């Protein structure tokens, strides 16, 4: 049965096409940018191709960061995984590698993200639910059992406690005999967007930024092939921001990290090449492509002109993309396969370096193995069947795409000005500006959905009230008790004197301002738990409490 969209007198499903009703109002992109019926050379008359586009692989990198792009090497197909205990995730990792995936991506459960052990009362009901539970190095050892760390690159979705997870990964490498300069991967480590969007923060902004710059310095010296941060727009977008806001707030966060690194005394070209980005790729096809192109141009210009970066690797904005989780619907979930395919195509046309495609069942629960395979196959079809990889930036020079790229850049710059007027990103976070902008956009979109102004197939148009009937992944409730039992076993068998010493050393470093990585590594090797380490840091740094507008 098909039901009409809420609040709209018309049901587009009744006619063959919505027809003239569409033209009532000037259409806009999802960000609210008005769109003309047609674009011509006049709309891009101010664009200087040499100055504003360059050639692929050259400044300002609008057309992509590599001259040969996907002919040289395809993007990394990287499916995010993590649930239950380390063994279960390890099994999923091995499955994905066997199916042709080229990089690993690991999600953690909420207790781990927030620095609580699995046996803390606050972790009740949460252990292993939305990611893998990691309490100590013992869990990390099991997570990568049988996976040689010099042969994969691993991305960790961790922000608070990123230094602990990285230290655990490096400790596993030590045990496998893999030298640290062979270890590749990424920690998300983007704390600023936690305060505005994702909300898995522990400490206040200042000490959090210090931990991050400690990691910049440590990795520049010891782990040169590891991306120490993945500056993320994904969560900002998923929290309800528009594409323009995602672009602006993410880059503004990026500039802040550059400034923090420089303030900590690091030359910009020493750490900027290891900065990478993580964007959302949403439904509005051309707007998304324009967003990626604009991001590259802005980053290159600002790094060169404002921060004096000279190394071309500092100027190149590399990014991972993930299809938009919020666009997945619980209703008619098989439609999600199509949404994901179109979003993935936009990411590829926008020049991503790695890509995660969501699975059709993720509006309901974590994905099943079958659903993950279809998502991965979607990327493989784009790579091997569509032919879009043959030429670099195939949409470059399109009047519309070039106009939209410049328009998004202009609108992002408006936001940069407003943030600067408030004294920078941290001030804009503390006074709630960024959060308010995002919440307002989220609410506007929701109202547009309710009025039928924005349409979602299968939800407010073309509904079909049959139950979804998609098999979903169930997390065994026993995971929690198994994980707690394991944690107790580790605590019982470890050398507790070494634990106390390591924690005391961590506290001293935290208070003195010394680089935190060496004492964290020592704690990890001694099998300290994540909460033991974070509790030490909570005592020293304090705990952040949100005070923002709804």
């Amino acid at each position, binding site marked *: 049965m098909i039901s009409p969209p*809420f*609040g709209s007198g018309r049901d587009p499903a009744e006619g063959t096409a919505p027809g003239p009703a569409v033209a009532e109002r000037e259409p806009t992109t999802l960000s609210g940018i008005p769109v003309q019926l047609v674009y011509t050379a006049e709309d891009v008359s101010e664009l200087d191709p040499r100055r504003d586009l360059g050639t692929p692989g050259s400044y300002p990198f609008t057309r992509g960061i590599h001259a040969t792009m996907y002919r040289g090497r395809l993007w990394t197909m990287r499916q995010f995984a993590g649930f239950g205990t380390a063994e279960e995730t390890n099994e999923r990792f091995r499955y994905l590698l066997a199916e042709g995936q080229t990089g690993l991506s690991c999600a953690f459960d*909420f*207790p781990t*993200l*927030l620095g*609580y052990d699995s046996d803390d*009362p*606050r*972790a*009740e*009901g*949460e252990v292993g*639910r*939305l990611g893998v539970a990691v309490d100590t190095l013992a869990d990390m050892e099991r997570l990568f059992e049988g996976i040689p760390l010099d042969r994969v690159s691993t991305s960790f979705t961790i922000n608070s406690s990123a230094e602990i997870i990285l230290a655990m990964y490096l400790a596993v490498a030590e045990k496998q005999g893999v030298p640290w300069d062979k270890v590749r991967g990424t920690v998300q480590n983007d704390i600023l967007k936690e305060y505005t969007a*994702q*909300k*898995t923060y522990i400490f206040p902004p200042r000490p959090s930024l210090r931990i991050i710059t400690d990691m910049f310095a440590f990795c520049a010296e010891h782990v040169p092939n590891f991306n120490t941060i993945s500056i993320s727009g994904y969560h900002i977008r*998923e*929290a*309800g921001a528009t594409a323009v806001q995602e672009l602006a707030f993410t880059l503004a966060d990026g500039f802040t990290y550059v400034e923090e690194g420089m303030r900590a005394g690091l030359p910009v070209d020493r750490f900027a090449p290891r900065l990478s980005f993580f964007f959302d790729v949403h439904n509005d096809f051309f707007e998304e492509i324009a967003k990626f192109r604009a991001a590259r141009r802005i980053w290159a210009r600002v790094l060169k002109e404002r921060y004096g970066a000279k190394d071309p690797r500092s100027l190149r904005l590399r990014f991972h993309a993930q299809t938009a989780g*919020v666009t*997945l*619907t*619980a*209703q008619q979930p098989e439609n999600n396969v199509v949404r994901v395919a179109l979003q993935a195509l936009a990411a590829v046309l926008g020049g991503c370096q790695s890509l995660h495609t969501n699975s059709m069942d993720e*509006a*309901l*629960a*974590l994905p099943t193995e079958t659903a993950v395979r279809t998502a991965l196959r979607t990327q493989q079809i784009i790579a091997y069947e569509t032919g879009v990889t043959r030429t670099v930036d195939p949409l470059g020079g399109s009047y519309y795409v070039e106009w939209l790229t410049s328009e998004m850049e202009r609108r992002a710059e408006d936001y940069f000005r407003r943030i600067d007027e408030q004294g920078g990103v941290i001030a804009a976070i503390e006074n709630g500006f960024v959060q308010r902008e995002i*919440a307002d956009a*989220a*609410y506007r979109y*929701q*109202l547009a959905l*309710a009025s039928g102004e924005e349409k*979602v197939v299968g*939800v*407010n148009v073309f509904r079909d009230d049959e*139950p*979804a009937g998609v098999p*979903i992944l169930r*997390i065994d*409730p026993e995971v929690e008790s198994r994980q707690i039992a394991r944690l107790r076993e580790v605590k019982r068998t470890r050398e507790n004197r070494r634990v106390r010493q390591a924690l005391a050393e961590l506290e001293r470093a935290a208070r003195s301002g010394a680089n935190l990585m060496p004492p964290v590594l020592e704690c990890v090797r001694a099998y300290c738990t994540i909460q033991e380490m974070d509790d030490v840091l909570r005592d020293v740094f304090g705990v952040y409490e*949100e005070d923002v507008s*709804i």
Partner: protein
Amino acid sequence: MDAKAEDAPAMAGEARPIRVVVAKPGLDSHDRGAKVLARALRDAGMEVIYTGLHRTPEEIVRAAVDEDADVVCLSLLSGAHPVLVPKIVRLLREAGLTETVVMLGGTIPDDDVPAMRAAGVAAVFGPGSDLSEIVRAVREHVARARAGAAGA
């Protein structure tokens, strides 16, 4: 437990605004839905208290008692609902809020809905639910609860 809402004198006459506590139990940090809902309920003329993130069941119940909430809307996207939701409902009832309506939203698989209803949840809203549908459900459930309390 001596605090029984049934022995409270019934409200006289005209409708007072509906008071809603919007709460985020557990550790999941996705507050977009909760915030959008808070605004929608306000725009529908209700008085809304949003607790913020990462609240324990005890904390949520305390807020609901102090604020004398007609409705507690729980938003969970972490999958911890089988553990946390029944606990919250039980603590609410023990605290004397016998007629307070509990509603649940977030990623709640269809298979879990009967268990949530059995635990005392009046309505469950999955992803993609229409805001006006939720607003309407809040009004209906509160009207019923108030009528029930007045008749007791």
